[in-house]
């Protein structure tokens, strides 16, 4: 792995801390450099395939925990994947350790990346697997997220049980945290690219970023990113704790806030970019569509807010 380091042990003497450690900063720089080198916008637009999987797998992205990294480290890596809008069933691959996508048992018929994975996992009361080639259906020729092909599968059968009820809960919690981290990356990138655009786009003889109506849209993007980041890091750090008191709620908070940050920043970014924001050419829509896609993963904000309220 390119950003190798010694994984830290939980240290009883260090204080509550939601900022990256020095090690984590260099790990973050490492993954950024790797993604910058390999995933320029043209490559991203080619979508997910075997070589994307292989490169990320070789870099250790799908084996972080097995390699001794902690969930906080994993969240940092997934935040960066989101920043670059790297396509693919990345969270499912990281959780299963195989080339897989996932569905949820209550709605298992729309399957992502079916043509590029070995298996599909179904998370319900337990975790089950089906071989990808055992599932048949109609591949959509117009998916919402152009980089996430979806197949409408008729009567999917997930027969092999690969995890029990406890494993299903773990899958949901860990999946929600990594997805939230990716959503955070989306939100953060949209804020940065919109600010850059607002400084360079001139109207009425001045940068549009000097108009308060635009500045305030951008300030709100920052607000959402900052709160989402703190929440995601708190949830990831909580996964690393041996106790799970309050864990479910911390995760629900993170997934809710990161999901909403990604979607709301998608809308704001479109607005700031004007007509350019409505084009296929500018990347904003790719991030926006990924945000909508990920909102359906591991619980949307409605279900998480219901769960939070029930826990109060």
């Amino acid at each position, binding site marked *: 792995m390119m950003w190798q380091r010694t994984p830290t042990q939980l240290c009883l003497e260090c204080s509550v*801390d*939601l900022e990256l450690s020095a090690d984590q900063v260099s790990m973050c720089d490492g993954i950024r450099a790797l993604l910058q080198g390999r995933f320029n916008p043209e490559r991203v637009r080619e979508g997910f395939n075997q070589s994307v999987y292989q490169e990320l797998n070789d870099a250790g992205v799908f084996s972080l925990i097995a390699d001794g990294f902690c969930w906080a480290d994993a969240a940092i890596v997934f935040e960066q994947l989101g920043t670059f809008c790297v396509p693919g069933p990345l969270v499912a691959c990281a959780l299963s350790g195989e080339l897989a996508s996932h569905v949820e048992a209550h709605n298992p018929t729309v399957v992502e990346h079916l043509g590029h994975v070995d298996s599909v996992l179904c998370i319900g009361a337990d975790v089950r697997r089906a071989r990808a080639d055992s599932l048949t259906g109609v591949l959509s020729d117009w998916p919402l997220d152009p980089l996430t092909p979806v197949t409408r599968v008729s009567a999917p059968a997930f027969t092999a049980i690969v995890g029990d009820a406890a494993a299903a809960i773990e899958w949901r919690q860990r999946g929600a945290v990594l997805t939230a981290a990716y959503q955070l990356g989306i939100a953060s990138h949209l*804020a940065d690219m919109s600010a850059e655009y607002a400084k360079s786009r001139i109207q009425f003889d001045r940068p549009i970023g000097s108009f308060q109506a635009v500045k305030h849209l951008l300030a709100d993007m920052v607000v959402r990113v900052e709160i989402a980041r703190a929440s995601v890091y708190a949830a990831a750090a909580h996964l690393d704790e041996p106790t799970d008191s309050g864990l479910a709620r911390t995760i629900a908070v993170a997934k809710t806030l990161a999901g909403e940050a990604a979607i709301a920043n998608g809308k704001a970014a479109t607005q700031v970019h004007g007509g350019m924001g409505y084009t296929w050419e500018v990347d904003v829509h790719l991030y926006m569509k990924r945000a909508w896609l990920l909102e359906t993963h591991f619980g949307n904000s409605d279900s998480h*807010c219901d769960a939070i309220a029930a826990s*109060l």
Partner: protein
Amino acid sequence: MELRYTEAEEVFRAALREWLNSELPGMAPQPHREDWVARRKWDTDWQRRLFDGGYAGLNWPKEFGGQGATPTEQLIFFEETTKAQAPYVGVNFVGTLHAGPTLIEEGTDAQKAAHLSKILRGDEVWCQGFSEPGAGSDLASLRTRADRDGDDYVLNGQKIWCSFAHIADVGEFLVRTDPDAPKHRGISWLVLPMDLAGIEIRPIKTVLGSSEFCEVFLTDVRVPVSQRVGAENDGWRVTNVTLKYERGTAFVSELIDSLRLCADVAAIASDAAHLRELGRCYADFAGLWSLTKRNVSQTSRGTPGAGGMVIKLAYSEARQRFGELCLRILDREGLYLDGNELVEERLRTMSLTIAAGASQIQRNIISERVLGLPREPR
């Protein structure tokens, strides 16, 4: 990243809890909100107890009577006192949270000796005379004059929105000492004894129907030049020191209390849509609590992030959304204020998006300082 408190911090927490357990039952009941004499006594009595217990001036350096506590210990203090429903800082707000810290950074030895220990003991109540009828968000346009006459300044002008002025002993006041200089360069920061001749104080009735703040009229008020903090005409710089503290940790207690209120409201809500929205409000507050901790982590490392600028803006708006939801849940039970904390809070929190920098100003600041966008006219 790490969620655990150190052993030393847990010891601090346990001792604080024990102290609160022994102290709080002895407190007199909270006085009526319009009984200002009793309120002053109640709030300063609490300050005195904090002092005797070794918890006054937590973030002040030890050499000035403070506790020199770490930022994390301060968070624990806010957490525990709020959970125990201990009194809020109340009328001690200006003295302990921003005037005192300003004196520590900018005051002379004599000024420190005259005020710091009194503030910590609850023997001196401060108010803040910054805003004027013509100078709100554009604070630097203030016009209250201070004309030099020998060793005195002679003050003439009007201040407004001056919280606690009617019960304060002293105030931090901004005055114009050079009317000809550009507006940011002719300001001085004064310690004004509130019993000087020529000071007239008139309470203003707020939306709560009570009088939390006042107008202050200054007519030929003579105050010694030695009451100035910082150099003459350097008051804008000193003001920024004050504002830094004012906008700092002021909302932590409220934020923690908001989490408690969410649980209280969950108990009276039954509609599924209300509950979902309540879950959303809780997420807002929980996210801000995480951001508060992250902000402390960053500040402790000497690399403060955007959190400090974000928290005040986001908290005040989240709290108002929560208040709206409460009114909808209460429906007609929200038509009276007596004994109805949630309705009173809905009214009180209307000020959050205005006081200490209106939301629009906060958005200007974030977009300029965090994102580097073009600046507003100053």
